[in-house]
């Protein structure tokens, strides 16, 4: 699902806001989340997860083309930790899929025999 598909599903799920408002709202939310991380502030969404910054210490890198070594300074990278509800919903559905596949196999075996 892309950003524009996300805008469309939200538009279908509700009927009181104009498509344009939903588009602006989604862009506004993504921009606010980016700004938050860019200013070093965490994001905490209950049931979804939290975003924070992880520090990567300075290291000696190498230019893959020339083989030259380059000193790289320490930096921060965004990190996402899924929340319990998201983890459980994603995994529960997966377990159901696995169980269905398993049952399907048995049914086919039964029919074949």
């Amino acid at each position, binding site marked *: 699902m892309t950003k524009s598909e996300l805008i469309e599903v939200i538009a279908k799920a509700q009927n009181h806001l104009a498509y344009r408002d939903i588009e602006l709202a989604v862009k506004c939310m*993504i921009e606010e*989340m980016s700004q*938050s991380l860019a200013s070093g*502030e965490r994001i905490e969404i209950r049931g979804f997860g939290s975003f924070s910054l992880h520090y990567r210490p300075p290291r000696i890198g190498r230019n893959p083309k020339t083989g030259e070594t380059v000193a790289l300074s320490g930096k*921060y990278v*965004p990190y996402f930790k*899924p929340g319990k509800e998201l983890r459980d*919903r994603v*995994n529960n559905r997966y*377990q159901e899929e696995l169980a269905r596949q398993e049952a399907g196999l048995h049914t086919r075996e039964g029919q074949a025999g």
Partner: protein
Amino acid sequence: MALTKADMAERLFEELGLNKREAKEMVEMFFEEIRMALENGEQVKLSGFGNFDLREKKQRPGRNPKTGEEIPISARRVVTFRPGQKLKARVEAYAGREQ
């Protein structure tokens, strides 16, 4: 201080003029639709921000950290986040300012 759903709803109220109820619903729906796509096994790509990907993990040996007892960690599907180039660059710029 961390950014929360309440902060995001407040911003929609201030910047886009949604009423408070609409703003709150919009934020809820945003995260719920992303959760539903992931639940359905679909990757979510938010350009400028990053991708939420799904990975299937095989069963692996685990241990109860309290008792030391060996218990296998069952096969599962997990969500991972890959920040996009734009977000990575913005976050790195912050680190630059700090040093």
